[in-house]
């Protein structure tokens, strides 16, 4: 099961994620992708840099898959997150979930991306023309007093 949840430095190929959850007995696969957005709050991103605590991040992604199984029963999940330098429109994260019935696939996908933004040790650094910033450190450099970043700060949806 762990190989359904991984961190990569390579461009994400959606088919790799989808294959892992394709089953003859299910009729619905939902794939969510978070891509690098050019504008956030009117500010133009040049590119992003993602860092991860890789072994723990893969464990936490697997934990999310397990939580989904507990909540939605017969659901198979695969998640890949890319790290390193990402350009505009590059896929940063892809989540594929197969379920017998489609409503569960939507709900579980939404849950998965919310949980990634809560518990998976991955960080994003914005590169603008006038500087850089690790997101999650919006208010004071070196103090991290914002807790979980706001929706706006998170930059992709």
């Amino acid at each position, binding site marked *: 099961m762990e190989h359904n949840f991984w961190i990569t430095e390579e461009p994400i190929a959606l088919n790799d994620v989808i294959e892992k959850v394709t089953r003859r007995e299910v009729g619905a696969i939902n794939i969510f992708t978070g891509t690098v957005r050019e504008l956030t709050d009117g500010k133009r991103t040049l590119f992003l840099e993602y860092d991860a605590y890789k072994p723990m991040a893969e464990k936490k992604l697997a934990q999310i898959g397990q939580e989904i199984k507990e909540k939605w029963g017969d659901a198979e999940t695969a998640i890949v997150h890319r790290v390193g330098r990402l350009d505009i429109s590059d896929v940063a994260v892809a989540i594929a979930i197969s379920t017998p019935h489609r409503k569960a696939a939507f709900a579980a996908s939404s849950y998965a991306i919310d949980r*990634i933004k809560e518990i998976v040790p991955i960080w994003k650094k914005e590169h603008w023309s006038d500087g850089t910033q*690790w997101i999650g450190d919006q208010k004071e450099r070196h103090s991290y007093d914002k807790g979980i970043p706001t929706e706006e700060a998170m930059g992709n949806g």
Partner: protein
Amino acid sequence: MVNVLFFAGLQEAVGEHRVTLDVAGKTIDELKTLIKDTYSLGHLDHVMVAVNEEYVGENIILNEQDTVAFIPPVSGG
């Protein structure tokens, strides 16, 4: 000895990704204070801590060979 890892903005503030400290027997809370003083950081209230890749509370006591990670607010996705 205990391995201590820093990431993202915290790594830049500390200037190290990894340090080894003689802190077995201390609590996470005590280690936090030590780190804050050593590297002249602001408060670390929103930094979560993982020991051996699992999130832990502030009262956990560190053992020899543990790997502690300071996890600033995450921003994946």
